[in-house]
């Protein structure tokens, strides 16, 4: 089996992630923050250690501002819906995933917000910044955008956008679903107010745990309410972070696995991972473009994701044929139809290779042989 779908979820996982998740289920079986017996405390300590590691890794500066969520989508919903008021104007890029777009569309209906997208494809940082500045108005309160695309390897100049937003009093939320564990992130230095990321993609942990990191001066309304283990007599969620935003029981094994994955990524080094993925991109591009009828999108931007098509074979059929040969790729629109429009893919979308640290050049040879022999 050859797995090129790491942009959807990483596979295999880091050995430390599997081990830590399993160990957690065997030894830390209590409910964190629900009592003070030994098993509950062990679970709480495991979770706090993961908050500390993530805070250091992401430049958050405070472990209590790491909030665990179900996934990135949930974290983005918390941030977007917690920051936007009736009548606000919001900016996002043309490459956004539905995890950003659908909450914004819902807010258009529910709160009458206005929404503008800024172009990115084919533009340099200066042009992107000019396009953002041209769209800012009196009522612009939030800019939400991805760090790296899920359908190509384009990334946005997050530090420049963060500085612009801070200078103009605009809140800045970032979708790091495809960049966490692939590209460096420093929330303070990049002046990000809210950062959403998954545990199960680039950080190589299990599914079931996402993260919302909040900047120092930012608070949000609660997204859901319920048991928090503290302040039980109060009718409201506690004021203290992160409990304010973590109603209900946390997925301790998934969080322990995320900590294991993070330790693997940290020991390997982001620069090594980034370099490996760029090399795979360039090698894959060379192989695919050597075959008649194939096209690679955003071919000049190497990175962890490569999008391609065949002129005569629909992308879903391409993926099906590859699957028959034991090669996993994802085809279609990848929950990012506007991004596909921006790249100019056909109505059926395209096939995507999502590289990871465990992929090899030999696997690319197998991909090339399979594509070459397609009926």
């Amino acid at each position, binding site marked *: 089996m050859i797995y090129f779908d790491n942009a959807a979820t990483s596979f295999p996982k880091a050995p430390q992630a599997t081990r830590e998740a399993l160990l957690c289920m065997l030894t830390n079986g209590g409910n*964190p*923050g629900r*009592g*003070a017996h030994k098993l509950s*405390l062990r679970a*709480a*300590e495991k979770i*706090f250690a993961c*908050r500390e590691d993530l805070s250091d890794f992401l430049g958050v500066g405070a*472990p*209590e501002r790491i909030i665990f969520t179900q996934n990135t989508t949930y974290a983005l919903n918390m941030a977007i819906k917690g920051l936007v008021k009736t009548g606000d104007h919001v900016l996002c890029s043309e490459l956004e995933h539905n995890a950003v777009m659908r909450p914004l569309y819902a807010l258009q209906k529910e709160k009458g917000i206005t929404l503008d997208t800024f172009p990115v494809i084919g533009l340099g940082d200066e042009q992107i910044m000019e396009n953002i500045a041209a769209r800012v108005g009196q009522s612009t309160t939030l800019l939400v955008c991805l760090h790296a695309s899920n359908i190509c390897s384009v990334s946005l100049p997050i530090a420049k956008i963060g500085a612009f937003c801070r200078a103009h009093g605009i809140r800045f939320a970032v979708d790091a679903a495809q960049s966490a564990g692939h590209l460096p992130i420093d929330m303070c230095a990049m002046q990000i107010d809210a950062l959403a990321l998954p545990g199960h993609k680039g950080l190589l942990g299990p599914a079931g745990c996402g993260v919302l990191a909040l900047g120092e001066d930012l608070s949000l309304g609660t997204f859901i309410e319920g048991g*928090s*283990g*503290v*302040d*039980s*007599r*109060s009718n409201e969620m*506690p004021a*203290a*972070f*992160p*409990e304010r935003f973590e109603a209900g029981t946390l997925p301790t094994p998934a969080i322990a696995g995320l900590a294991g994955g993070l330790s693997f990524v940290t020991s390997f080094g982001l620069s090594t991972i980034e370099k490996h993925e760029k090399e795979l991109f360039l090698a894959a591009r060379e192989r695919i473009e050597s075959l008649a009828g194939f096209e690679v999108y955003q071919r000049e931007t190497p990175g962890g994701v490569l999008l391609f098509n065949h002129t005569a074979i629909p992308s879903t059929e391409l993926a099906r044929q590859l699957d028959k040969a034991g090669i996993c790729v994802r085809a279609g629109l990848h929950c990012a139809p506007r991004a596909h429009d921006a790249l100019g893919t056909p109505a059926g979308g395209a096939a995507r290779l999502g590289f990871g640290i465990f992929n090899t050049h030999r696997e690319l040879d197998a991909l090339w042989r399979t594509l070459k022999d397609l009926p």
Partner: protein
Amino acid sequence: MYYANHIPSRTVLAAIGSMTGAVKAQRALLAAGIAAEVVALAPEQTRRGCAYGVEFSAAVSADARATLRTARIAVSQYIEKDTPS
């Protein structure tokens, strides 16, 4: 260094609130060489229901309070008490 299972009978409980805050406080105290245990506060000790805190020996109370202040951990109250040995 005082070991957690050898805490003298007179102790101080720093009431913090959240479990995250209590674990953070415990780590700050341990880093300063002060043994501390995370404990659940009795609901009747707080106005708002369940809460957590850290308990340490009264003998190191001044150092512990200074450490928690430096770590910017909000303590709602300090409760000194005799712990049955």
